[in-house]
């Protein structure tokens, strides 16, 4: 990208002048080292129009294909979004591919990134620390104690865990509703599930472990009854872990379930009508929020997001265009510029 010249200026390099008997003299005479004489060999890149121009073309040539790739990928991702109200109804299925389909729930105007909210958790309690279980951190206030019992898990984040139930049914043409099987695992970061979040002991009997604590006020069930599967119960319940990773923006989505692919031949979701059944527990009206359900496939770049593709294509084309324009300017006016310099 840049033309460069390697300038090794140290004819006398790192050699120190230290003749025999020159002891007294040397103490005062500055040492003739490359560093002290500011003559370290140095690479001195020259940035000129000539060296920078190819960079524009190269950036353009690399970015435009990447952008197109990203854009196409993003466009190929099928996404289906429905705003949840107190009703459910039949919907057309847009998915025709055979890969996993991911079900997200989305909330808007929900400030999970509010500072009071973000800090309202006790990570050592969630990591299975018994002491913290019984004495939740002050940060959890006012969700630390309820009726003089420590809340497990404490804090505002845990307390406001999303507790709607979403179920998807296939409306078979013959009139029956077939429930689509969905997995509730694999939705949280592996490290969160296995290291950061741990139940107080590995004791299978979670009920005993959480003895003496109380459930968060808004919860209907205690933490040890979140799931029947012992590997997905208590603090390591993945719905819980996903909720505990606070979102960056007030409008966000969180992974809810994965609809696993059947095999590579059969589409994961068959063509036809589906019904989404929502057990509506989670109040959003009070803060003017909205709930959504999103079904989406996933590519190598994640979920559907045309931004990256467009950005890459734009930057790439701008670079390329600039390269062309600059090349023309450089060729046409470059010489005249030089002569102007000389006149000065």
């Amino acid at each position, binding site marked *: 990208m840049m033309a460069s010249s390697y300038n090794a200026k140290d004819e006398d390099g790192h050699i120190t002048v230290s003749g025999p008997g020159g002891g007294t003299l040397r103490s005062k005479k500055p040492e003739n080292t490359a560093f002290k004489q500011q003559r370290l060999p140095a690479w001195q890149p*020259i940035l000129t129009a000539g060296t920078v121009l190819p960079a524009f073309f190269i950036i353009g040539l690399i970015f435009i294909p990447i952008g197109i790739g990203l854009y196409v990928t993003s466009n190929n991702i099928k996404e289906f979004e429905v705003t949840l109200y107190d009703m459910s109804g039949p919907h057309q299925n847009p998915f025709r591919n055979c890969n996993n389909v991911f079900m997200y729930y989305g909330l808007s105007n929900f400030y999970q*990134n509010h500072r009071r909210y973000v800090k309202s958790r006790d990570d050592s309690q969630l990591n299975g620390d018994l002491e913290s279980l019984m004495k939740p951190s002050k940060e959890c206030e006012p969700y630390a104690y309820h009726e003089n019992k420590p809340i497990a898990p404490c804090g505002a984040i845990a307390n406001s865990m999303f507790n709607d139930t979403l179920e998807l049914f296939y409306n078979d043409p013959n009139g029956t509703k077939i429930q689509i099987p969905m997995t509730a695992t694999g939705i949280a970061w592996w490290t969160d599930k296995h290291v950061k979040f741990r139940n107080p002991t590995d004791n299978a009997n979670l009920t005993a472990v959480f003895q003496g604590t109380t459930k968060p006020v808004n919860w209907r069930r205690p933490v040890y009854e979140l799931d029947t599967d012992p590997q997905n119960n208590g603090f390591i319940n993945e719905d819980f872990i996903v909720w505990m990773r606070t979102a960056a923006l007030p409008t966000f989505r969180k992974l809810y379930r994965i609809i696993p692919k059947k095999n590579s031949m059969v589409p994961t979701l068959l063509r036809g009508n589906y019904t989404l059944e929502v057990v509506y527990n989670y109040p959003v009206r009070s803060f003017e929020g909205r709930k959504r359900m999103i079904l989406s496939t996933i590519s190598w770049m994640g979920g559907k997001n045309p931004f990256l593709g467009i950005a890459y294509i734009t930057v790439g084309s701008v670079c390329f265009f600039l390269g062309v324009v600059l090349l023309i300017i450089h060729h046409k006016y470059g010489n005249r510029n030089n002569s102007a310099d000389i006149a000065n």
Partner: protein
Amino acid sequence: DIRLLCACTCLGGDERRVDSRTIYVGHRSGSPNEAIIPPKFCDNRIVSSKYTVWNFLPKNLFEQFRRIANFYFLIIFLVQVRTVDTPTSPVTSGLPLFFVITVTAIKQGYEDWLRHKADNEVNKYPVTVLEDGRRIRKESEKIKVGDVVEVEEDETFPCDLILLQSSRDDDTCFVTTASLDGESNHKVRCTALLDLESLNATIECEQPQPDLYKFVGRMHIYTNNQEPAVRSLGPENLLLKGATLKNTQKICGVAVYTGMETKMALNYQGKSQKRSAVEKSINAFLLVYLCILVSKALVCTTLKYVWQSKPGQDEPWYNEKTQREKDTNLVSMFTDFLSFMVLFNFIIPVSMYVTVEMQKFLGSFFITWDKDFFDPEIKEGALVNTSDLNEELGQVEYVFTDKTGTLTQNNMEFIECCIDGFQYKYRDASSELDGFCVTDGPVNKLQQKAGREREELFLRALCLCHTVQVKESTEQKVVPPPEEQRGFIASSPDEVALVKGAMRYGFTFLGLESKTMKILNRNNDVEMYELLHVLNFDPVRRRMSVIVRSRSGDTLLFCKGADSSIFPRVRQEEVERIRMHVERNATEGYRTLCVAYKHLSAEEYAQADKGLREARLALQDREEKLMAVYNQVETGMSLIGATAVEDRLQEEAAETMEALQGAGIKIWVLTGDKMETAKSTCYACRLFQRNTELLELTVRTLEDGGRRREERLHELLIEYHKKAVLNLNLFLCSCCRSWSSANQDYGFIIDGATLSMVLNTSSESNSSRYKNLFLQICQNCTTVLCCRMAPLQKAQIVKMVKNSKGSPITLSIGDGANDVSMILEAHVGIGIKGKEGRQAVRNSDYAIPKLKHLKKLLLAHGHLYYVRIAHLVQYFFYKNLCFILPQFLYQFFCGYSQQPLYDAAYLTMYNICFTSMPILAYSLLEQHICIEILLDNATLYREIAKNAMLRWGPFLYWTLLGVFHGLLFFFGVRYLFSNPALQDNGQVFGNWSYGTIVFTVLVFTVTLKLALDTRHWTWINHFVIWGSLAFYVFFSFFWGGIIWPFLRQQRLYFVFANMLSSVSAWLVIILLILLSLLPEILLVVFRKPRGPHARQVELKHTYTA
């Protein structure tokens, strides 16, 4: 009543303290029946250190927190500690502050430790004190006023002493005051009295004052119940602390001033702190950023309350406040504001000051290390007394230079003389052994030589009228050393040149022994003269005289001095014959002195003798009285001749001056010398060119018109102003292009007398107007020559220019004690380690061995330092702006809740670890243009003139760049996060991932931005730039890889690793970095080619074209 008596004497003591102090020599009371109440004087400790072990911590902390930036950070820290509800932990701002304070404290502690060491060396030095006839070894600091101290040869005096006894027969001793005022000659000091054993005396002398050459005292000697004898004491009896005893085995003296009251210590103080213009720029920028900070906090606070006013926003069901938060609702507005301040406080770069300080401190080593500044003659290199002004060297607009010893070598050589109007030019000693050789003499062709008698009188005068000493060889040889190698020591090199000149013509000065001057005349006979009086040289009289008595009993007065001071005192008919020679010599650049003599009759001498003795005894107005007697004696002399001494130019003086002028620096020569001599030096240094039009404003031009001086001055000023200022402006308007070639250069000459007229005109209204006119004329002249300047006038001129419009950066360079005032006054003071000793060096900011080194110091070092520090400052503000701007923008998306975008570790480490080293390395090593090219093309210096890189334009550019980057980082990631499912397994990212992506882009962008600006990549640059980035990646992995037991929240656990597992994150990071740097790269295309060699290429083009 004893008590009453005590009170009385105490009172008396207090009264005396006002004007004089009484010292009991050897602590023995003056008269036997009077008990001594020892007056309290300070002890003999020299304290130059600032701190002690005990007060270091509080005092240093106090000093550091007086700095506005540190104080600000302390406040922020305290706010964080006190307020429970702060967005970031106190550690995040406390740690950098602690780091900064510690580093500064260590640096200052180390410097103070060095001072302590130096102090101890002086204070613990063993000295011998005589107490009741016994010799006691003591530490120097224990000397009290009144102690009798014994000092041996080559020792320095531990305090200011009155000489009592000397081991020399003639009751004198020799001292050298080289370390005090730089005069390396041996000075004679006379004893005050002889008998030490039964000494009973008091000394009454003035209170300590800093003037090295003034001392007035009186000694009362009590001998068995007689009236006390009184002796006068003057500077010739005083041995100053810091001076060294020479040529004398040992002396005894009584301490009169000790410790911090010695003249040395009094002179040491008062060195004012100089601040660089860059620091002023930093403070201005700091204020802008403070305003940005406050307005950001205000905007956020306001919006927060607007946002909260909507129902359900402030406290939704999922996010209730604690009871305490609800209670403190009333003051919450203020705490919210403080919280935002805390959140955004990183915008003021806490580490900038420490980095700037380190850069200056370390950077100044390059000056001392530079081998080009090493002078093999004196075996010394450059010296840096302050590292605060490095960058100022790149900003110099005015150079004020001394002439003698700075532009010229101060290595005098006798060139010719003129006796009775006949010129004697010395050709070569070997070819014309017998002396005089006459060339192109005066018009009188009948008689080519002056009479032999006159010749010899002239040479005798040269041999006698001086204060030169013969250097005594250590092994008292009987055989005098070969003539040419005879060593002379004198305070002024002119005198040595004259004595040596006389030696060539056959008159050799053999030395001064017990008031007898011996001369070897042409016939190899020794002539003896009794030295009766020396009428010392001083710059006001500009002459000196001796009164001697020859063997035959004639009393003669020889006088030599500047023509202006001699001519009025001799017979006018003699003057005309010699004036021509003097003027011709002066125009050739020689220093001229006139020699006159006078026979003193017995009565005349007796009268003069009496007058001189009386004046010397006077306690008050001694100077004035002496002056009056001198003037009275030095009249009615007859002129014998004149001498011309050449002061050769310094090596490469002309080239250096030319380079500086090429660099756009205006050079003012300030000298005490004559106008003609100074003018010729200016021509020789190419400061004046042939086509330079000289505008003269001297006493001579003022007297031309025959009118009153004031009127003439007014007229001339207006005329010159018209010429130099108005014409130039007209000229500039008419032809803007290539103005430099056709421009008329003006040189301006003014002398001291006229200058004081300009500056102190009688009428008030005119004075400011004259000053303005004068300044405007001067500013339009390439060179200004100010001659016949007193030291204080030099400083006055510097001050005037310094405070003129645009407050240009001034630099003073000089080598002598008379330049100290202007060295101290200018922004940058440079001392030359010349012949006139060390005083200039000690008071300077930088000291160099030769004038020629000034070129590299300014053009290369100064230029580079300026570019480095300017870039450092701008970069620091930029990197903190784009660091904190995303955090500010995030507030709009998190309900103005002061939620930090970045993790606390990142907030803390950003400035002290991730981005500090590359910029430090850059600011130490960058050479955007090679040193050689900088030296070859002085015009490059103009590119950075007038603080070009730290003006509001560049600041705005950097600020906008920071804003652009900040916006890009934040919104780029924001749009990416419109779908937070960024991993290929459908999992979502949270707020900490958001912050980490922004932070990663940020660290990479600011580091690569610096890499893009680096023109000089040494291995160190490579190491720190790539090392910093690697360290960031490593640290992020490490920080997120472990559940840290001491953290309350494991916010970043595996966030970084997860981010890297997402392709989208990679792509957005690459995109944003590239997009941020794109405008920079784009600018390159439009700019002139840059880089160290590009200049060369460009110049080659110019030559070929």
